[in-house]
């Protein structure tokens, strides 16, 4: 699942910083620094995908263990961000399919943390999050990367290895589904 440098965008070709190089050389403090820098992003992708803190933290943990094993293959800070988004999203899709297969969950069983929102705004946003989690996994991945990570369709396509038009069409259909469900 290692991301190849060839597929990186030009702005991702930045040089490897000292921290990344130190972590790749086995420096645990440097790795801890990288972990703290990126844990919010990785956890949030998993959280927005599953809406389950424990599942999201387990998955994020797996991603960082894999990152530790793959540090030598990561060429720059921007490559690291690209790699983390790619691996996290793919793991989310795989894990979701695995859980569905095992019938541990049903789509309607997802519970938003803090199920008693304080304001109508919170309630509306909670509803939007739940609707996102009700989307098919590939649509959900596109929506999370687009609106959480603010990625362009071309970046999402490079990250997930899908054609740009597929990403655009999935995004369009996802938005349409969300609008339809929100109006109901």
């Amino acid at each position, binding site marked *: 699942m290692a991301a190849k440098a060839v597929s990186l965008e030009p702005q991702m070709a930045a040089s490897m910083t000292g921290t990344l190089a130190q972590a790749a050389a086995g420096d645990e403090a440097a790795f801890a620094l990288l972990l703290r820098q990126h844990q919010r992003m990785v956890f949030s992708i998993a959280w927005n995908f599953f809406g389950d803190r424990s599942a999201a933290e387990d998955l994020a943990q797996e991603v960082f*263990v894999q990152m*530790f094993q793959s540090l030598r293959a990561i060429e720059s800070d921007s490559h690291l961000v690209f790699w983390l988004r790619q691996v996290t999203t793919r793991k989310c899709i795989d894990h979701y399919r695995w859980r569905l297969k095992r019938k541990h969950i049903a789509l309607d069983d997802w519970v938003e943390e803090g199920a008693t929102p304080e304001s109508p705004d919170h309630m509306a946003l909670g509803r939007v999050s739940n609707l996102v989690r009700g989307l098919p996994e590939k649509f959900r991945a596109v929506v999370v990367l687009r609106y959480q990570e603010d990625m362009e369709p071309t970046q999402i396509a490079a990250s997930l290895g899908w054609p740009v038009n597929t990403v655009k069409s999935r995004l369009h259909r996802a938005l349409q589904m969300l609008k339809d469900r929100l109006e109901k």
Partner: protein
Amino acid sequence: MDRMEEKLKQALQRRDPSPDFSARVMARIAEEKTRREQPWWRIWFAPSWRMAMTGGLACLLLVGAGVGYREYRERQRALEARDQILQALQITGTQLNRVNRMVHQQ
């Protein structure tokens, strides 16, 4: 950007994991590092391997003991058979001597 997209941006904002998340990950990493650094033969000393080895040795001992007992029983039977043959030969010899004496007396 339309209203729906604005809502999505707000709803899907980043959030923090639990405060002990990084500590848990670092503990896993330390475990991983130890596992990678230990020489391959150290696996034989891992508890799971130790248990498997103990089980294997117990099985070997049981099989060995079974084979040994079978050999012992066969040897015992061979010795008993030899004793019986010797006894039979002795009886036959005694009988022959008696017959021989009777023939000479007549």
